[in-house]
């Protein structure tokens, strides 16, 4: 059979596509996501992050192994499940990335600008150490229940500010986080939007970051997710490691309490 007629014949034996009903579409997309779990490129970032954690770096040529992420110097296991939290030495509530920057400055002698230079990487030429370190540290909280405390007054304040920001309408489109994430069953094109105002929605959403984003071929952190939401809402740029970013993270992380942390994950 000539290749051209074969192609025509093949078109006949291709299984007829499913009826494009929303239900079966979600099922198929769920299958797509499940198939991606096996062999998550995020592991490549986790491995690089572990190396960076243990490597002597910076002007002081010291590793990050004495960095206190809240559970004691050098304790990485379970640390992410308790962040953000108040740190007395900085007198500030910090999320993981700001704490990593703090340790890079205090322990390794980097300047804050150097440590924050590339918060979000792009390809093999512009890699982000912070993304790799975040991947490593968060992987050590996999399987741990989210357990963010609100004991210190500054932690409570961060939560309240984060909550206010969540509902704050602004920008050219008068959007708030709640606009997209405040109701069940919302979606943008075929992307389901989690309802972050329910415990279930908040838990599922927060515990799947950081994630390897297939569309970018990069591992992205929660700071990135907030930064990108602000961009999509046409808000001014969310500054990396700012009080605003930390407050929103505090609000969303605390609302995820009780859920088992299951990241780094893989997403579209």
């Amino acid at each position, binding site marked *: *059979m*000539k*290749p*051209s007629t*074969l*192609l025509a*014949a*093949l*078109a006949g*034996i*291709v*299984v007829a*596509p*499913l009826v494009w009903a929303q239900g079966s*579409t979600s099922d*198929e*997309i769920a*299958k*797509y*996501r499940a*198939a*991606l779990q*096996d062999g998550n490129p995020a592991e490549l970032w986790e491995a690089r992050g572990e190396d960076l954690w243990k490597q002597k770096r910076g002007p002081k040529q010291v590793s990050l192994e004495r960095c206190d992420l809240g559970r004691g110097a050098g304790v990485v296991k379970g640390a992410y499940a308790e962040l953000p939290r108040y740190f007395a030495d900085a007198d500030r509530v910090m999320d993981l990335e700001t704490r990593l920057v703090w340790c890079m400055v205090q322990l390794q002698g980097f300047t804050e600008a150097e440590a924050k230079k590339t918060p979000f990487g792009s390809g093999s030429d512009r890699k982000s150490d912070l993304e790799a370190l975040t991947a490593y540290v968060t992987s050590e909280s996999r399987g741990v229940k989210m357990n963010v405390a609100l004991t210190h007054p500054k932690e409570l304040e961060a939560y309240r500010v984060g909550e206010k920001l969540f509902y704050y309408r602004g920008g050219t489109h008068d959007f708030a986080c709640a606009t*997209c994430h405040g109701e069940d069953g919302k*979606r*943008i*094109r*075929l*992307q*389901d*939007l989690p309802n972050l105002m329910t415990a279930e929605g908040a838990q599922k959403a927060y515990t799947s970051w950081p994630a390897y984003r*297939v*569309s970018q*071929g990069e591992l992205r952190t929660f700071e990135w997710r907030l930064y990108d*939401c602000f961009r*999509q809402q046409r808000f001014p740029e969310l500054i990396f490691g700012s009080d605003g970013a930390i407050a929103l993270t505090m609000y969303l992380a605390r609302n995820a309490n009780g859920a088992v942390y299951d990241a780094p994950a893989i*997403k*579209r």
Partner: protein
Amino acid sequence: MNDGRRTFLKSGGGVTLLTLLAAAGWLDAEEALAQTWNKAAFDTHSLGDTLHALGGNEPAQSRDIEFVQTPEIAENGAVVPVGVASKIPKTESIAILIEKNPNMLAAVFDVPAGTDPVISTRVKMAQTSNIYALVKADGRYYVAAKEVKVTLGGCGG
């Protein structure tokens, strides 16, 4: 021993690659290594041309080639999981072709005796398209097809 070998492979210094490969027991795999990349096969736009470049022609449709772990809808065409399982005896190679890609051939896997003729990988798809699994078994070619839809997911997640 392995650390030393890795250092050699990194620096390439001192010993010739051939003696190194011999020492590491790679010489029987040398033939596979020496196989150069088939540029012509990766530059084709039809099943027939690809087959020609691979040295074959006229594949027979086969129901003994299955797509495994290959979803019907890919949320993002940049990464589409594709798995092919061939039940045809004496399968020698499995190739994955994507009809509507700029070039059809995505990958060719040579399956030596002892290796299961089941391969999983991830490919890029430019748009919704048929994926062809092309199997060479006992010198003859067989093919099966599956349509995979590609969709843009939106803004989040």
